[in-house]
């Protein structure tokens, strides 16, 4: 066996992605260093890593977002490389730079590439120069109200206002008529200032029936760029993805090839190194550049399942100077369902302790999660608990498999978004493959009558068994067995009485 590419990787992240990196590192003979906040002392990534270093308080700004604390942990633990995961410091150019200065390999692109792609205005300019199609819009922030009104009219309503430094759906406003434009612009600026400390917004055409399709690329240090096909991510609510699939059912082979080619051109234009994702809007046979995410994406496993690659392994390999692998022939269809701790009706976050956990399994089912029984879901971090990924020979089977796996997945202690994902998967619109980013607003959220009738029956049976009178037995010999239900309810009554 050849020596490992790196000695020790520090993962500047938490949750399932930290665990994801630890797993591949271990398989490659690379030791892992977890960092953790106070809230994450018992988290699975801490327990599964080879080393663990506390980096601060529970709020992200006191721990996972602290460049100094993360770098100090890397030095203290002797890490020779850092994996940033997604979110937190993953797209922070200053962090990439600080790693380079500290002599620690950053498993991601250069600070320059992060800066260019992280600034949406600059990214559009670079994409335009690289011949990547853009949505009609303005390349610069416009502060003059009169000019903004004039330009919006030129582009044609509806238009969209987006934060220059945005991401994850923050700071996006859709404007359908001129009368709403200025108010929306000031709201978008306020939200952008609050979220990113940068209030620049830009204007672009709001594309009808848009689909969100993205291309996975990995680039090496020798100019080699490989595209690993596309992912379809149009099942979103409030611009947060809920279900992703690969391949995209709308793409023809010609469009797919053109899209992959465009993504590779963009990566070369910024001398990109590492894993990255180029996001496109697809609408009625055309595609437009949205943005490039200079990190591993949440939904990368569906690409891995189809192509039979380990993208984290590729990240390690290209960071060590090896050439990126060729894309193998993709196989079958993959779907990812994000399982978020939130109310399925209003999407409010749901907090609490995981009291019971039953995970799905069987053929073609992969679960990337940091869940365990006893986990406290706190308000400090993202609400995503797990990623349920399925792979099957064709799309219909993959949909059936995803629904089957959701039905097996049991989480008690917090409510999750799974029922919404299931109904989206089960909808005519999703099954037809002809859907767009509005799908979640259109699907029927009501459970079927069959489910409601069964639930009513189950609840009634539960109540009956719990409150059923316990017969007074004349003697111990003829006393009927007392069910666990009776005992439970008696205990509850006693508990109530004592309060």
């Amino acid at each position, binding site marked *: 066996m050849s020596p490992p590419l790196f000695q020790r990787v520090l993962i500047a992240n938490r949750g399932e992605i930290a665990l994801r990196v630890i797993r591949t590192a271990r398989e490659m003979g690379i030791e892992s260093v977890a960092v953790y906040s106070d809230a994450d002392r018992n988290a699975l990534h801490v327990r599964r890593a080879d080393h663990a270093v506390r980096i601060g308080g529970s709020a992200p700004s006191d721990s996972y977002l602290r460049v100094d604390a993360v770098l100090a942990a890397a030095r203290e633990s002797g890490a020779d490389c850092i994996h940033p995961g997604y979110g937190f410091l993953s797209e922070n150019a200053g962090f990439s730079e600080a790693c380079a200065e500290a002599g620690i390999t950053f498993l991601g692109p250069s600070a320059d590439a992060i800066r260019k792609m992280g600034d949406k205005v600059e990214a559009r300019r670079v994409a335009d120069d690289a011949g990547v199609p853009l949505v009609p819009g303005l390349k610069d922030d416009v502060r003059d109200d009169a000019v903004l009104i004039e330009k919006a009219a030129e582009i044609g309503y509806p238009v969209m206002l987006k934060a220059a430094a945005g991401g994850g759906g923050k700071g996006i406003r859709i404007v359908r008529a001129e009368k709403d434009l200025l108010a929306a612009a000031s709201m978008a600026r306020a939200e952008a200032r609050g979220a990113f400390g940068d209030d620049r917004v830009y204007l672009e055409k709001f594309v009808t029936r848009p689909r969100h399709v993205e291309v996975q690329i990995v680039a090496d240090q020798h100019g080699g760029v490989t595209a690993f096909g596309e992912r379809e991510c149009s099942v979103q609510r409030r611009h947060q993805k809920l279900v992703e699939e690969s391949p995209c059912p709308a793409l023809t082979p010609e469009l797919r090839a053109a899209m992959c080619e465009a993504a590779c051109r963009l990566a070369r234009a910024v001398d990109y190194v590492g894993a990255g994702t180029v996001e496109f809007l697809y609408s009625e046979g055309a595609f437009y550049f949205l943005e490039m995410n200079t990190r591993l994406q949440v939904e990368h496993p569906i690409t891995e399942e189809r192509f039979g690659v380990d993208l984290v392994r590729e990240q390690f390999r290209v960071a060590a100077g090896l050439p990126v692998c060729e894309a193998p022939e993709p196989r079958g269809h993959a779907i990812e369902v994000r399982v978020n701790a939130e109310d399925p009706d209003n999407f409010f976050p749901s907090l609490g302790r995981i009291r019971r956990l039953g995970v799905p399994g069987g053929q073609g089912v992969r679960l990337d999660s940091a869940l365990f029984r006893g986990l406290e879901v706190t308000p400090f971090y993202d609400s995503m608990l797990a990623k349920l990924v399925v792979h099957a020979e064709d799309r219909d089977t993959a949909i059936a498999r995803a629904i089957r796996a959701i039905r097996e997945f049991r989480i008690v202690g917090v409510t999750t978004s*799974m029922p919404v994902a*299931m109904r989206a998967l089960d909808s005519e619109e999703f099954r037809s493959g002809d859907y767009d980013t509005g799908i979640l607003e259109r699907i029927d959220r009501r459970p079927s009558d069959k489910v409601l009738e*069964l*639930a009513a*029956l*189950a609840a009634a*049976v539960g109540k*009956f068994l719990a409150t059923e009178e316990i017969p007074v037995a004349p003697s111990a010999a003829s006393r009927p067995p007392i069910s666990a239900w009776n005992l439970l309810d008696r205990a509850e009554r006693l508990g109530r009485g004592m309060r």
Partner: protein
Amino acid sequence: MKYFAKALDVERSFTFERRNGSLLVVRDDGESFVVDLSPVGDGGAYSFLVDGRSFDCLLEREQGTTVVQLLGERVVVAIQDERELAAQRVAGHKGGGRRAIEAVMPGVVVDVKVAEGDTVEDGQTLCILEAMKMQNPIPADGRAVVARVAVKPGDVVAGGDLLVELDDAPEAEEGAAS
């Protein structure tokens, strides 16, 4: 004794009968089922057999409601027996009146959209609560007058904390007295 269950718009009542060691449920529409609800461990998981059809389900029993998870769905069922229903009828219906709008989750108040004395419509945003990177508008639960605003932008609130108190709006359209 009768049991009354309501799952969204599906309302049912059930009676139970033990017969030869099995449990028979009769629904108000005359349908009857032989059921067996068997607890699995102590976490609220059950194996539920209905006329031999098998459902793996979870029941979380709370006061007056049971949260049922089965077939990948989660349904909140309002459940009462005859005695509880009678007791509730005696207590009488409370109606609207002065009521508290509470934070449904912990978070930070980023905006307050109303002031005391404002008349608000059903669903109108009272304030915006940010939690887990998401901005969540908190709506009025009906047409009402804002009796008190308990928070200001920047306040950190825990789940269940008072945000706004509402009172019934007068039926007649009147000019706001100041």
